[in-house]
């Protein structure tokens, strides 16, 4: 029997779609900044908050790929998966992919935060924005994802069975 995903609340659909669009906007800005030069970013260039130092550091590449480009790719996929159409997808694996992607994204964000704090010693404002958006997406998706994927029983199903 084919696996099926359970529906989720409308709030989760709206929240994840808006968060994904916000993340996409930020990652587009960071990608343009990567290719046009760090001075493109409207950001402090002195003190702890210094986008140029972060976005030109060795850690701004991962396996030879600019981190900004990886972030952009992540949010392009997230926008598709978190769109109302993505949430309505019948294929179970679309929903599993969304969950796996946000887990991977959160793990990558933790690496980037550690790099900023412990290696680069500076913080990039827009990168932090992306990190917060990813964390918010993570909170929503770990809230609704397991039940949707049938790993736990959702509260609504539980109530319905009473």
């Amino acid at each position, binding site marked *: 029997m084919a696996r099926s995903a359970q529906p989720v609340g409308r709030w989760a659909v709206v929240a994840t779609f808006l968060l994904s669009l916000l993340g996409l906007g930020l990652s587009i800005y960071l990608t343009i900044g990567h290719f046009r*030069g*760090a001075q493109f970013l409207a950001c402090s260039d002195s003190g702890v908050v210094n986008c*140029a*130092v972060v976005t*030109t*550091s*060795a850690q*701004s*590449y991962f396996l*030879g790929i600019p981190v900004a480009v990886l972030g952009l790719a992540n949010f392009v996929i997230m926008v598709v998966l978190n769109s109302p159409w993505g949430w309505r997808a019948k294929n179970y694996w679309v929903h599993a992919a969304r969950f796996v992607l946000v887990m991977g994204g*959160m793990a990558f964000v*933790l690496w980037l*935060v*550690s790099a900023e*704090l*412990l*290696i*680069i*010693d*500076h913080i990039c404002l827009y990168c932090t924005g992306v990190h917060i958006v990813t*964390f918010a997406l*993570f*909170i929503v998706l*770990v*809230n609704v994802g*397991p*039940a949707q994927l*049938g*790993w*736990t*029983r*959702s*509260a609504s199903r*539980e*109530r319905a069975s*009473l």
Partner: protein
Amino acid sequence: MANKPPAKKTPVKANNGRPAGLFTWIAVGLVVVVVAALVIVKVISGSPTTTTTGTFQATDATTVSQLTTIPTSVFDTVGISSPVAPVSPPIQLKGQPLLTGTNASGAKVPKILYVGAEYCPFCAAQRWSTIIALSRFGTWTGLGNTTSSSIDVYANTPTFTFLKASYKSKYLVFSGVEELNNVYNPTTKTYGALQQPTAAEQAIFSKYDTSKYIKTMTPADNGSIPFESLGNQFVQSGASYTPATLAGLSRSQIAAGLADATSPVTAAIITSANYETAALCNLTKQQPGNVCTSPGVLAAKKAMKL
């Protein structure tokens, strides 16, 4: 309609018996704990220890060899083709008196003046090309290893220092001035002082490193480093290619890759070196002939309209 008895509040159970919200709490809690731990480690440890000590470290013979004996085929294959990183050539000046110096044999020859600093990431990128270009006219000794500042843009870009470098050539003389090291002093908010240009060198720097002679500069950029005067006939202010090209690579990786004409990093460095060589050939009256008539240099001359 019969009233249903009120539903008893029962904790939602997972299939394996855990409450449904447990996974959410564990996952979010784990992230919060990791971030909190990172912040605590950061606060306790303070700023990362600088990787530079200001102590001179001579460049090893292998790296110097990789840098100064690049196969001719690499120069000629690359020519001025750098598909990933755009490269800007030196700017030709018109009607300026030739800057000369006396070489080891006592001959008066064109002088190359470099003004930069060890902390400067743009100097870090430019030194690779400058060393390579000049090695086609003479011999380097005393090159040292350094990296750009760890707290500036393009942090820790691997490069070399001219601090104790000596250059011998029958065609040219070279004077390198590294004004500051790469060790930042948070108290004085500057880097440690190293060398100062002579009064004559400072006059050249002040005169030519300006928007009056370098039209691509704005007045706000006057006095930028790195600055190179090639006999006062050509000038270069700033790096000819972005230091981002070298990001994430070690000095030995870049040096070893110089024999590979297909590497985008090599392409940027060699394109810049070919442009600089073309300008130097203009000063040396196209000597040595095998360098100045090589296909890579001819391509650069054509692009620079020399």
